[in-house]
């Protein structure tokens, strides 16, 4: 008797707890469901339709035809290749660069540390548009400082049209992307390195480990979770590289700098093929999900 009364009471309490929890969640859920979940579901659904813009056109169900077309679209395949190139080059470089910077600055005095952290974060805060327009000027064929400095140092014998040349355009974009993506990893590594138990490092030094060994054996394993997180966010960011492309080269010359994200934009808002663009979006999301899962798995095994 007593026990059943007790469970009845706890059930009432649990129900009340659930109700109050959902009331607290409600405002956020309205936005989350309305402007994230619904569009995500719509993205998947529309990818099976021939869908264009315009009020009098009706979406036509075409099954997986959009997905089939993707693998025959040479521009899409090229943009996929470019995207992977950007990811493969920029993700490891970003991680190594930011880890090195963090390892030099993390035990500096407070104001010096925050000055350095601030400067490496500047390109992120400045905003992609402002950063892009100034790089466009610096890379300019006639008025850019790259050609001026290159010639002054004797590295170039004539002006190079950096962004208009298929051989260089993508590398210029990767360089700019690097400067705008190391900010956050540096902040994360500085705090992770600061949290490594100093007694462990001291013990290793007493045992005769040099700096490099102390780093490799003690610090590296304990900042592994941070490295994993940085890998994932940098990968996602590199996959999404858009503003740089749109403002610098518009995918040109000759689609040599198209990324998937830019090609999605081009297909949807220049060609008005929403269904096809959504199919690309789904494929991109799957690639990112698989890659993140692989990174997690590899890091766990280590």
């Amino acid at each position: 008797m007593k026990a059943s009364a007790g469970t009845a009471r706890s059930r009432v309490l649990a129900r009340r707890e659930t109700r109050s929890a959902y009331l607290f969640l409600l405002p956020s859920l309205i936005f989350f469901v309305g402007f994230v979940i619904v569009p995500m579901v719509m993205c998947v659904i529309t990818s099976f339709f021939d869908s264009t813009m315009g009020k009098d056109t009706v979406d036509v169900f075409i099954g997986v035809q959009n997905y089939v077309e993707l693998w025959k679209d040479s521009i899409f395949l090229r943009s996929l290749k470019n995207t992977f190139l950007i990811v493969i080059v920029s993700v490891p470089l970003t991680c190594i660069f930011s880890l090195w910077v963090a390892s030099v600055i993390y035990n500096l005095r407070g104001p010096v540390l925050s000055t350095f952290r601030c400067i490496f974060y500047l390109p992120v805060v400045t905003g992609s548009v402002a950063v892009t327009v100034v790089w466009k000027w610096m890379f300019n064929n006639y008025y850019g400082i790259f050609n001026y400095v290159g010639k002054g140092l004797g590295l170039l014998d004539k002006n190079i049209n950096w962004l208009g040349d298929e051989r260089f355009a993508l590398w210029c974009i990767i360089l700019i992307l690097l400067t705008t993506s190391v900010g956050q990893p540096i902040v994360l590594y500085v705090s992770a390195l600061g949290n490594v138990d100093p007694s462990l490092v001291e013990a290793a030094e007493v045992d005769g480990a040099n700096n490099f060994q102390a780093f490799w054996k003690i610090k590296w394993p304990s900042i592994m979770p941070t490295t994993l997180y940085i890998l994932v966010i940098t990968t996602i960011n590199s996959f999404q590289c858009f503003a740089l492309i749109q403002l610098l080269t518009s995918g040109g010359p000759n689609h040599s700098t198209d990324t998937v994200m830019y090609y999605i934009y081009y297909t949807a808002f220049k060609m008005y093929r929403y269904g096809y663009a959504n199919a690309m979006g789904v494929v991109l999301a799957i690639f990112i999900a698989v890659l993140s899962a692989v990174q997690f798995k590899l890091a766990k095994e280590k």
Partner: protein
Amino acid sequence: MESGVKRMSAYKIIALVILVILAILFAFPLYWIVTGAFKTQASINSTTPEWFPSVWVLDNFRKLFSRQMAPLWEFAVPFSSHFSSTGEDIIFSAGPMVPAAIRWLVNTVFMAVAAMVLTCITAAMAGYALAKKRFKGRALLFSLIVCAMALPKQVILIPLLREMSSLSLYNTIWAVILPTVGWPFGVFLMKQFSEGIPGELMESARIDGAGEIKTFTNIVIPMVKPGIGALAIFTFINSWNDYFMQLIMLSSTSKLTISLGIAKLQAENSTDFGLIMAGATLAAIPIIVIFIAFQKYFTQGITMGAVKG
């Protein structure tokens, strides 16, 4: 020991020198934006760059401000485009005419502040519920949030555009604000901060007869204040700089944000670098000042968001 200190400092000195050079290179684009905005046309169009402007002029800003005009603010009757005779919104209050660039700044500030306030309120409530309450569907909801965070935000922009136009919000600043608030990073961050609230504290408040709302405002909010600060500055900066969403949702001149405005300047006068740099200065300086002022909170937000990320 002695030699150990020396060896370390030798490496440290070389590393610091390289670091200072790198820092200069990282700060250079910003330096180039600001100095470029004040250079003369002749100096910008010379093939030999001026590392430091010999003459500082305001010509570029004058040109920027005299290009297009727009009312300082416009308040439209919500959804009035449905029943007005022209199909346009009915405007019941419009400000004095100012240079369009100023209006773009006003739009950007409004957008960033609205996104910040709404995100902080909704995320603080939801993060608290997720961290401190046991309820049905909690695990499912939390994994949904984490999965959504890992997906590329920009992929959903196309369906979002259609949704906004069916809600008659296309080409209004709300089309940019609402999806920013929906992005679950804030909820995740506030959950991390709310985990740290001691359970006894809320228990004792409840024994004292405080209701749910009172517990939240008097106990929870003061405890998660640093988290709210971090989220506020994070949302403000991200929404200020979220170019892709703004590009897709906003089109008419008076509705643009400052980022879109500069992109438009660049599209229309691609080689007038002085003018473009004046626009870029206008966009970058306010946000950099805000960032430096609140750097402490910002750093905290980034690190907390990553824990168990």
